[in-house]
């Protein structure tokens, strides 16, 4: 038991030091910042992807609506209806783009 205590006491007195604390601190902080930046970028990409998908869906929906009108009522297409649908869809898309721009500026 005495020998055990002696070894433990000797170990307590032993001190260990990092080779270069300033460099270690700087390097670790760089790694931390790099990791944070990569997480932020991933989050931004996901949000952008989601908004772009929604935007594309809205962009394509009036086109299919117009096609339907032309196919079904080739003789007398109601241009008012077509322009109303297009205006609403593109208006919504515009709002979405503004929202996307704001979102990106908040994240950066």
């Amino acid at each position, binding site marked *: 038991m005495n020998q055990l205590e002696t*070894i433990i006491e*000797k170990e307590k007195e032993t*001190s260990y030091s990092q080779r270069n*604390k300033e460099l*270690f*601190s700087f390097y670790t*902080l760089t790694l*931390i910042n790099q*990791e944070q930046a990569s997480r932020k970028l991933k989050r931004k990409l996901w949000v952008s992807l989601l908004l772009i998908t929604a935007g594309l869906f809205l962009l394509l929906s009036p086109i299919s609506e117009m096609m339907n009108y032309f196919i079904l009522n080739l003789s007398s297409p109601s241009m008012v209806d077509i322009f109303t649908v297009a205006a609403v869809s593109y208006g919504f898309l515009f709002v979405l783009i503004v929202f996307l721009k704001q979102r990106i500026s908040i994240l950066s």
Partner: protein
Amino acid sequence: METDEELVRRTLSEGSHHFGVLIQRYADYLFGLGMRLTSGNKELAEDISQQAFMKSYTYLKSFNSQKKFKHWLTGIAVNCYKDLIQKENQHLSLNAKDEPNYTPHLEGNIDFFNLIKPLTEDEKILFTLKYVYEYQINEIADLLNQKSGTVKSKISRALEKLK
């Protein structure tokens, strides 16, 4: 001098540069803990301390300021050590046949490393924290998320092995 808790608060509100002070404050402590747990493997000890700082920064928001930052950091470092040992073992078992033996650069008090050699990884951790760092049983139980009774019996078993 700012306390650890103040530095944590400032890191969360003002940015990571305040965390640099905490890194410098505990770099030697974590390196020493790593050296003791890895029986003097300098490279592994450095890896453990770096991983512990990175992990602690990631989970800094979850730090409870009622507790000591040093204890919280110690718990994270011990988990990093366990992860690293697991990875090392997997790597060694995968490459044992293909690669020549790697001899790590060992430094420190050889007597102590030889003393704790017969202990399991878990026992090494508990023994070191109790007898070298003089943590109380309830503190060890708290920082390792274990029951006090379990910690106590594991330390007794480790002592029996060493006698």
